[in-house]
């Protein structure tokens, strides 16, 4: 489109650009503030509250949080749950999606209805908890993975993608003596790398961000993933709800420490964000097409 050169058009543009720039800044500045705050001293933060770029650099906060192994342990839990969970989710989601994408699978409509229905109606927290308990998964890491192993939304995106792979490719592989497993692993998956990357990242973000399932299903605090620890540190320190789970003898951490813990939780996502951004918009749209 050509730029509108009337006075009204220019006024509109000026207003539009300014407002959008302001919105983008406001939505990003909290992260900058927290990152900057985490890299300065408590004294500097107390004296100069509006830091966006620290005048006095300090890694005290990070040295403090990494001085015990609590953070490392929670980090390890989160990383392992994210890796194992994403692999497991991708394996069973893509296999199911591939099966459902094949016209010769009997009952695929019924199964699809069953999947979509779970998006509209669910048993809710208590019955799900009882199932997890019945399966003896309480206080195991499996409870952070199995109950959310497949997202119906992600499954539909994958199925739609597989459906668009030309059937001729599969036919010719079959004639060459390839079975369905072979077709799936050697032909379909290599052709689907972009969508597999997108969905893997979606799953990974979900597992990394796991909070609800951790507080529902984990009893022992040494199994906590990072998000639960983060919540404990920040909220405890704000003096709002006192939690007995953390040692009462330890003085509440100050702002810089809280910020450092937030940064540690945020960083992995900011690091994969460029990757995410490359694919996600497409992924989000694929999913909106009716299954």
């Amino acid at each position: 489109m050509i730029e509108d050169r009337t006075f009204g058009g220019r006024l509109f543009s000026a207003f539009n650009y300014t407002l959008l720039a302001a919105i983008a800044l406001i939505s990003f500045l909290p992260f900058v503030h927290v990152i900057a705050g985490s890299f300065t001293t408590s004294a500097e933060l107390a004296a100069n509250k509006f830091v966006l770029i620290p005048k006095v650099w300090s890694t005290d906060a990070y040295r403090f949080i990494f001085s015990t192994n609590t953070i490392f342990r929670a980090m390890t839990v989160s990383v392992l749950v994210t890796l194992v969970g994403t692999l497991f989710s991708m394996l069973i989601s893509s296999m199911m999606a591939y099966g459902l994408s094949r016209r010769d699978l009997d009952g695929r409509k019924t199964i699809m209805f069953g999947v979509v229905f779970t998006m509209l109606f669910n048993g809710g927290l208590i019955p799900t908890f009882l199932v997890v308990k019945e399966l003896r998964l309480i206080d195991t890491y499996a409870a952070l993975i199995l109950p959310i192993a497949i997202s119906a939304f992600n499954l539909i995106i994958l199925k739609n993608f597989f459906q668009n792979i030309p059937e001729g490719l599969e036919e010719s592989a079959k004639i060459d003596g390839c079975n369905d497993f072979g077709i799936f692993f050697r032909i379909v998956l290599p052709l689907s790398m972009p969508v597999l990357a997108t969905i893997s990242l979606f799953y990974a973000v979900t597992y990394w961000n796991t909070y609800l399932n951790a507080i529902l299903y984990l009893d022992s605090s040494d199994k906590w993933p990072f998000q639960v620890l983060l919540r404990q540190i920040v909220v405890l320190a704000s003096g709002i709800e006192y939690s007995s789970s953390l040692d009462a003898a330890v003085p509440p951490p100050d702002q810089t420490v809280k910020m450092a813990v937030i940064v540690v939780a945020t960083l992995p996502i900011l690091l994969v964000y460029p990757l995410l951004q490359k694919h996600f918009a497409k992924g989000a749209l694929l999913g909106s097409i009716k299954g």
Partner: protein
Amino acid sequence: MRATGGRPAEAALKPPARMRAGSELGRRLKRNKLLYVMVLPGILYFLIFKYAPMYGLVISFQDFKPYKGIAGSDWVGFKHFERLFTEPDFLQILSNTLILFGMNLLFFFPVPIILALMLNEVRLSLFKRTVQTLIYIPHFMSWVIIASIGYVMLTMDGGIVNELIAYFGFEKINFLLSPEWFRPMYILQVIWREAGWGTIIYMAAIASIDLEQYEAARMDGAGRLRQIWHITLPAIRGVIIVLLILKIGDVLELGFEHVYLLLNSMNRDVAEIIDTYVYTAGLKQQQFSYSAAIGFFKSFIGLALVMLANRLARKMGEDGVY
């Protein structure tokens, strides 16, 4: 799990009834054996973690005791549902939930639409991409991170927002503990996390609009605002309605995590919603049946509303969701 007990038996009964169709089916099952093997783990997942809990909702008609199990617990009919509607606590919680939902619809829902319209008017693609990059980020942060950043910025002792307020000579506000500030704080965090991400689907709908329409409108002397009003908005009407239906289906689904993270003993009167109440009553106080009844009520209302909204949309000549 027990809910699925009937299935294999049914499948086994079918072939003898219709021999030829059965053997044909058998052949196809055999030929696609591996496909079924691939689909099986997924089906098991849905049966165990989605359908078994649905069956588990029967405990809302029982006085469920974990050690007795579903088979051994006593049936009590609608007792828990009756309690639900007579308990003043529950009415308070229901109204809190509905108010938050109303605010979501009123203050959050239009934001991504407006943002998408604004972004669409940007001609400098570098500027557009930069803005998009920045406003999508919060979506990928967990509610714990969002709420934690909220805590750090809003706290009375040293939070940047209160320092700014003090700097301009006003009195500090205890955002985190005050009942009046809970709702604005909640909705602002929802907007911060989701508004940018929400634009994607509208941007895609806008991208498919035929550019000649704008050309023609300009010839007729329509300004930018009139073009938005008469071309862009009508073109994305369908998408808006579909998303509205889905949103209405989520009426009581406000996100346990977010509200739970903001909830504390001082703002409980306004912040306790159905989800957080189910958690407290069910798992902390072990009232399994009563809280399952509340959950059932919630899921049922959600389903009914989606269907209703969908029917309305169809009546208005739109596509609907299904």
